[in-house]
C-alpha cells in the first residue's frame, strides 16, 4: 500500500506563527518521506533549539529535540551506531552557523550519511528578534538597535569550503523545488545540506524578502562536481541561485568505519575477536 504524508504527522499540532514557512518545509518533508517509502520507525529526526527546533515534535518518527547547536553531533552518533536508519537533522541559522557552527566542518570530514535541513530566517525568531550570524550588516534588530556591525556569514561558500558532499539551496517560495531538493538530499550517499532561505514574517529582516523573490535556479549546464564554479555561483547575491550547487561521491562515515573494522580484524582473519582473546592479549 502506498504511504501518505499523513503517516508522518505526529499527534502534536504544529504551532508556528501564522504563515510561517516552517509549515511548508514540514509538509514538504512529510510528502517526500511518503514518496520514498521510508517507514516512520526507521527515521530519526534530530533538531536543535529555535523555531525549526520544533520540527522534531511534529514528525512521526524517532524524534530527538536536543540542545542548542548540537543536533549535528547527536545525529552523527545515531547514524554511526545505527547505519540502517535514515537520519534527518533540522536547525536554523543560529543553531547551525552560530552556536553549532564548529560541528559542520567535522561532520563534513567524516561525510556522515545524513540530511541536514538548515532553515535560515536571518534572525533569532523564537526569542523574538535578535541578530543571527546571517543578519546582514547594518540591519536593526533587538540586539543591534543601531544596526548590526558584523559581516553576515555566507553559508553556501562555507559548506563548499568544508567539502560537504551535497549542497543545495532552496527558496521557500517554491515548495516543489524544496521537495525535489530534499528527495535528492535523502537519496544522496553522504552528508547533504539543504539550505532553505526562509524570511521571517514576524521579525522581517530588511531586503531579505526581495532577495529571495529575485532568486534564479542554477544554470542547467552547471557541473555539480566543479567546486570552484559552485563557489562562484554561491557568491552571487543578485541573482540568488537556488538548486544543487555541488554533489560528489566519496566514502561515507559508514564506509570509513567498515574499512577501519576490516583493517582492525585483518589479523584475526577478518573475524571479530572474543573478549577472552582480548584479555589474554594483556597477559
Amino acid at each position, binding site marked *: 500500500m502506498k504511504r501518505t504524508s499523513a503517516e508522518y504527522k505526529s499527534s502534536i499540532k504544529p504551532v508556528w506563527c501564522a504563515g510561517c514557512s516552517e509549515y511548508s518545509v514540514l509538509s514538504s518533508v512529510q510528502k517526500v518521506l511518503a514518496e520514498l517509502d521510508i517507514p516512520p520507525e526507521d527515521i530519526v529526526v534530530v533538531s536543535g533549539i529555535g523555531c525549526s527546533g520544533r520540527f522534531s515534535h511534529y514528525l512521526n518518527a524517532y524524534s*530527538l529535540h536536543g540542545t542548542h547547536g548540537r543536533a549535528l553531533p547527536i545525529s552523527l552518533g545515531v547514524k554511526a551506531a545505527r547505519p540502517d*536508519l535514515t537520519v534527518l537533522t533540522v536547525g536554523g541559522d543560529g543553531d547551525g552557523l552560530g552556536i553549532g557552527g564548529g560541528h559542520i566542518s567535522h561532520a563534513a570530514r567524516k561525510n556522515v550519511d545524513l540530511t541536514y535541513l538548515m532553515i535560515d530566517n536571518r534572525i533569532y525568531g523564537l526569542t523574538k528578534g535578535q541578530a543571527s550570524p546571517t543578519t546582514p550588516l547594518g540591519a536593526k534588530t533587538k540586539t543591534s538597535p543601531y544596526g548590526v556591525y558584523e559581516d553576515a556569514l555566507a553559508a553556501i561558500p562555507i559548506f563548499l569550503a568544508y567539502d560537504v558532499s551535497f549542497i543545495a539551496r532552496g527558496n521557500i517560495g517554491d515548495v516543489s523545488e524544496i521537495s525535489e531538493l530534499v528527495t535528492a538530499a535523502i537519496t544522496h550517499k553522504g552528508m547533504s545540506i539543504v539550505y532553505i532561505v526562509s524570511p521571517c514574517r514576524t521579525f522581517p529582516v530588511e531586503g531579505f524578502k526581495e532577495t529571495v523573490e529575485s532568486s534564479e535556479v542554477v544554470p542547467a549546464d552547471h557541473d555539480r562536481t566543479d567546486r570552484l564554479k559552485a563557489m562562484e555561483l554561491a557568491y552571487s547575491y543578485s541573482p540568488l541561485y537556488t538548486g544543487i550547487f555541488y554533489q560528489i561521491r566519496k566514502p561515507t562515515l559508514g564506509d570509513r568505519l567498515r574499512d577501519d573494522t576490516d583493517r582492525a580484524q585483518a589479523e584475526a582473519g577478518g573475524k571479530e575477536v572474543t573478549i577472552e582473546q582480548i584479555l589474554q592479549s594483556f*597477559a
Partner: protein
Amino acid sequence: MGNTEFKSDVDFVVRIAGEGGEGIISCGELFAQAAARTEYHVFTYITYPAEVRGGFSMIQIRIRDWMIYSMGSTVDYLVVFSQQGYDRTIGSLGKGGTVIYDPDLVKIEEVPGATFHAVPFSKISGEAVGGQRGKNIVALGVLGHLFSMDRQVLEKLLQDRFGGKGGQATEINLKSLAVGYEAARQAAMGCRFHLSAPSSQKAVYMMLSGNEAIALGAIAAGCRFVAGYPITPATPIFETLTRLMPKVGGTAIQMEDEIASISACIGASFGGEKVLTPTSGPGLQLMGEQLTLAAMLELPLVIVNVQRGGPSTGLPTKTEQSDLKFAIYGTAGESPRAILAPSGVEDCFYQTLRAFTISEHFQMPVIILTDQSIGYRKATVRIPAVSNITVVDSSVPCEEIDLPSPDRIQTTNRLEPSSEELRGYKRFKDTDDGVSPIARPGTPGGQYLATGLEHTEAGRADYSPSTHVKMTRKRFRKLKALSKTLETNPPECYGPEDAQIGIIGWGSTEGAIREARYLAAEKGIPVRHLHPKVVSPLPNRQIEHFLSEMKQVLVVEENYTGQFAHFVKGLFGARPIEIHKYEGVPIAPEEILSAIEKVAGILDEEDISRV
C-alpha cells in the same frame, strides 16, 4: 588479627632510571609484564619527563607474592643508565640493595652494604647491534638473568611487541636480550628471587593500567560505541578503545571536542547502543549541558572522568580528587546521576561493569571518577572468568543483579516496551521505580519524541506545574531505587569491628589507607576502614552505622577543600578529622599512619582522663 595478607616472603622493588628517550619505561614495562606471567603480583610507578627526549625518567616495579597496595618505599634493585639517573635515585636504595650501572656513563660512590655490578650497557649494545637502540633490552636481559627468568618468555614478549620473527626491530631486540643475559652470566649475578613462569601456558594475570582496565570493563559490559576527544590523563582509555572497538565489532570515533563527543554518545544511546565517553575534569565541564540532556531524555550514558590536578588547565599529568562535587552537582537544574569511584586498577574493571548495569537499568548518566594515579599505574589483574558473562533479563530488579567479580559477571540491558506497552506507548511512563521502557528506533509503533523540554509521560512538551512536579519526581525516583539497591550490597568495610578509630576514603586512596591500617595494626592500633565505591548516591545507612560505631573518624582525600568530608559533616552531622593532600602526588601510607597515631594518642589520653 587478619593481617596475614600483609606479610609476605617475596616482596621487592626494582627501579630503572636514566634519561627520557633511553627506552627506560619500555624496558621496565617489558620486565613487569614478564613478571606478571609468573605467579607474582606486580605494581608499577612511572615518572615521565615533561619533554619527549631528555630529562629524568624512571620506572619502579614492585613484585610481591600477595596483593600490592602501594609502590613501595625503598628500592632493592637499581638499574641506572645515566649520572642523573644515579644521582636522583641512589638515596632511595634500601639496606643491602643492588646497583647495576653503566661504568662508562656513571660515576659511583660505594655505599656500605650495597652490591655494585658494572655492566657497560652502551658498549655492549654498540658491539652487538651497532648502536644505542638495543641498550634498554640489554638491561632487560641482565634483569632476566638476575631473576632466573626463562629467556623464552622475554623473547615471546619482544616478538609480541615488535612484530614476529625476522623483522629488523625484533632481530635487534632478540640479539640485545641475548647479550644482556650473557653479560649478567659472566658477572655471576644472581639473587634469591626466582621469577620463573609456571608450567601451565594459560595466563592467570593481565598487566593493566587503570585506564586499560576501564576500556576492558566497557567491552566486557557490552559497550560498543565510544566517542571521545584526547585529554590527559584519560587519553589511554580512548586510545585503547580506538584500537579494540573495531576488533569486537564496535565503533570508536574521535570527535572535534568534548561537547561533540558526549553528543555523539547521546545519539548512539538513543539508537540503542551502550555508550561511553572518557575525559578528564576540563572535558567534563564542557559536557555539562549534554549531561543534563541525557538525564532529561533518560538515556543510559557512561562518562569516565580521570581526574587531574585543577583548576583550569591545572596539573594535567598529576593526580587529585577534586572533581567530586562537580561530578555530583555540576550543571544547571536538578537531574539524577550516579557517581562511581573505583579504588584501584582491578576495581576499575569491575566498577565499569557496574556503571553500565546502573546506567542501563536506571536510564541515567553514570560518571566513573578515577584519577591520574590509578589511570597510569600498572598492576596485575586476575583474568576474570569472562566465559561466565551472562546477560540478565532487563526486567530483573537491579538489587538482584550480582556485583561483578572475577568469578561471575552479570550485565544487563535497558528495558524495552512489550507489544502491549507499545499500544498508546508512553516513553516516559511514571512507574513505581521511575524506570519506563525505552523503544529502540526501528521498532514499529515505538516512535516517540525525546525532548530536553519538560514533557509529559507521552513525551509531549509541557510546562505546567503539575507535569514538572510529577516528572521531576519520576526522574529522582530512579535515584531512590538505586539507593535502595546500594543498601542491600555488602558494606565496603574492612578491619576489626571493635576498632575505635575509623577511616573513610573514596577512590584511589584505598591502597594507601589499607596499608596504613596494616601498619597501625602492627603497632597495636586497630583501625576500621569504610570505602564506598558508589559515592553518589551514598550508602547512607552503612555510613551512619560506621559513624555510630567509631569513637573518632578520619576522612582521607586528595583535595584542598575536603569535598567528601563535607558530606560526612553535612549529611550525617559527624565531626571527622580531615586529612587533605593536594600536592599532585598520591598520599602515602606513612602519612595516614602518622595521623592515626596522633588520634590514637589523643584517645588514650581521653581514656586516662576518664579514669
